[in-house]
C-alpha cells in the first residue's frame, strides 16, 4: 500500500475498479439464464393464455377499456403497445395467438435472441395496453424478461444449441463462458435484491389509523400491521384470498403473528444472505418454502412463482448444468 492520501485514493480506486470489473464482466456460463428462459417462457405462455377468454372484453373495439380513455389517463407517459393499433376482433385474436407462438419459441429456444426480445415486447404491450389489470406479478415478469433479452439465454437447452451441434456434425460444441451472461445475471440479481429490500421496507412502513375517519384523527392511533403481526390475519380475511380454507388459523393469534414476522424477516434476510456463498442454498430453499406458503395464503400464485423463479438467478451455472445433465443422462 502506498503512503499518503494520494496513494490511498489511488489504491482505493484501483481496488474498486477491479472489484467492479470482476463482479460485472467475469465471463460465466449461460446455463442459469437458459433455465430461467424456459421457466419464464412457460409463465408467459400461461399469462397470455389467461388473457384469451377476455381478449375482446378488455381490448376489443367495444371492450371495457377503450384505448382513448386508457391513454388519456396516462397522458405524458412513454408507453408502447401494439394492441393499441388492433381495433378489429379478428386481427386482435390473430396477434394474440402469434404472441403465444413467439412465447413458445422462446421456451424451446428457437431463434432465442430474437424470440426472447419479441416476448418482452409482447408482455410489455399487454401490460401497457391496460396497466389497471396488472398486479404485483407483472413487474417481476417484465424485469426477468428484460435481462434475459440481453443475455445469451438460448446458448444451451435450446433448439438453437441443438442446431449448432448438428452443424458441428457430431463434434462436441463447447459452450464457453461469456461476459454477456454475467452482465445479464448480475443485473437480475441486483434488481431482485432491490425488490426484496423495498418489499420489506414497504411492509415495515405500512400503517393506518384507527379509527380511520379523518375527522377523528386527533384521537386516532397509528397501527402498523406488519410490525404488530396482524397482517397475515388480514390476508386470511380476504374472502377470495387463500387457495384453501384457512379459517382455522384466524383465532390462532400466535400462529398469525409468527407467520407475519417470518415473512418480514425473510424479506429482510434474503437480499443480504443470498450473496453469502455458504448461505445461498439455504436462502433459496427458504424462498421455495416461503413463496409456496404465500401462494396458498394470498392466492397470488403467479407472483409467488415468478419471485421464486427470479431467485434462481443466484444458482451458479455449474449447479444448473449438474442438475440438468444428470437428468438427461438418467433419462432413457
Amino acid at each position, binding site marked *: 500500500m502506498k503512503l499518503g492520501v494520494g496513494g490511498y485514493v489511488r489504491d482505493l480506486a484501483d481496488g474498486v475498479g477491479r472489484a467492479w470489473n470482476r463482479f460485472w464482466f*467475469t*465471463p460465466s456460463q449461460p446455463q442459469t439464464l437458459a433455465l430461467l428462459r424456459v421457466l419464464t417462457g412457460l409463465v408467459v405462455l400461461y399469462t397470455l393464455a389467461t388473457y384469451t377468454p377476455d381478449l375482446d372484453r378488455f381490448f376489443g373495439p367495444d371492450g371495457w377499456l377503450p384505448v382513448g*380513455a386508457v391513454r388519456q389517463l396516462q397522458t405524458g407517459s*412513454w408507453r408502447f403497445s401494439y394492441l393499441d393499433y388492433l381495433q378489429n376482433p379478428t386481427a386482435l385474436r390473430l396477434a394474440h395467438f402469434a404472441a403465444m407462438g413467439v412465447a413458445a419459441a422462446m421456451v424451446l429456444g428457437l431463434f432465442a435472441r430474437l424470440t426472447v426480445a419479441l416476448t418482452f415486447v409482447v408482455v410489455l404491450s399487454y401490460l401497457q395496453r391496460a396497466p*389497471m389489470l396488472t*398486479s404485483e406479478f407483472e413487474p417481476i415478469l417484465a424485469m426477468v424478461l428484460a435481462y434475459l433479452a440481453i443475455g445469451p439465454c438460448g446458448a444451451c437447452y435450446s433448439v438453437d444449441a441443438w442446431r449448432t451441434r448438428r452443424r458441428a456434425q457430431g463434434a462436441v460444441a463447447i459452450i464457453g463462458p461469456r461476459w454477456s451472461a454475467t452482465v445479464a445475471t448480475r443485473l437480475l440479481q441486483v434488481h431482485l435484491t432491490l425488490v426484496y429490500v423495498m418489499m420489506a421496507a414497504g411492509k415495515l412502513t405500512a400503517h393506518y389509523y384507527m379509527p380511520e375517519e379523518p375527522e377523528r384523527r386527533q384521537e386516532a392511533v397509528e397501527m402498523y400491521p406488519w410490525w404488530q403481526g396482524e*397482517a397475515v390475519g388480514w390476508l386470511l*380475511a380476504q374472502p*377470495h384470498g387463500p387457495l384453501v380454507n384457512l379459517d382455522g388459523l*384466524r383465532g390462532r393469534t400466535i400462529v398469525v403473528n409468527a407467520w407475519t414476522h417470518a415473512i418480514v424477516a425473510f424479506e429482510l434476510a434474503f437480499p443480504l444472505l443470498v450473496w453469502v456463498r455458504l448461505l445461498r442454498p439455504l436462502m433459496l430453499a427458504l424462498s421455495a418454502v416461503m413463496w409456496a406458503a404465500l401462494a396458498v395464503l394470498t392466492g397470488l400464485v403467479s407472483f409467488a412463482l415468478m419471485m421464486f423463479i427470479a431467485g434462481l438467478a443466484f444458482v451458479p451455472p455449474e449447479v444448473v448444468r449438474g442438475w440438468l445433465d444428470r437428468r438427461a443422462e438418467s433419462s432413457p
Partner: protein
Amino acid sequence: MKSRHEPSEAVAGKELSAGWRSLLSFLIFLHLFALLVAVTSQHLGSVLTTKLRRVPDLSAVPGIGSQSWAHRLPQVQNYLQMLNMDLGYAFHLSSGGPDVSNRAPDTEFAWEGDFALPGETQKSQFPEPGTWPRQRRNRFAALGRLAAHFASTDRLSTSETVLAGGIAAGWAHEHRATAGTVRLMRRDLPRTVLPPETTESVLRPVFEYDLVAMGDRIEVQKKNPRSDTAAPAAPKGQP
C-alpha cells in the same frame, strides 16, 4: 465472498476491451441510478428525491398511480416506463393490484348487475364466483378497485368517468341488457385477527349506474355519486 463456482479473477474481463468495459459500466450505472430514483421516489422523502419526482394526482390508483411521476427527470421516467420498471416494489401481497396506498388490503370490490333482457331479468356479478384461474380473477378485482377509487375521489376528470362508466356499459352490453342497474359493491374486511364467526362481512353498494338504451347502444347514467359515504345498505342476494 467469492463463489467457488465463479471463474477466477485471472480471466476477469479478458473478452472485453477497456473501452467496452467503460461504456458498459456507464450504461449499467445509468440503469441502476434510474432504478434507485424509481424506488426512492415512491417511498422516501429527501429533498433530492422530492425534486426528482412529481407527486401524482392518481397516486392511490392501482396500476396507474404507481407509474406516473418524476417529470423532473423525464429521461429517467420515460426509460423506466418503457420497461415497466417505474415502481416502488412495496408490495403488500394484496390481490387485485399493487397496493400503493401504503396500507394492507381491507376492502374488496365486486360489480353486481340487475339486467333487464328482452323477456327476462338477470342478476350477475363479477368477478363471477369461481372465476378461474386466479390471475383472471385478480384482473377483475383490480378493475373493481380502480372504479371504486374513481367513485370516491373529488377530482374526477372526464377520462376517469368515461373509464368507470365504460366498464359498467361494456358489461351490460355483453349481457345484451336493454335496461336495469349496475352497482359497484364493496365489502369491508375485518381489521383484527378474530375467529371467523365474529368477522362476518357484507357487500354494500358504493354507487349505481342506470342503464339507458340509446339506439342500439347502452349508455350509463350515474345515480348516486359519493354514496360510499352513506350508511351501509342491505345487500341484495349476498351472503
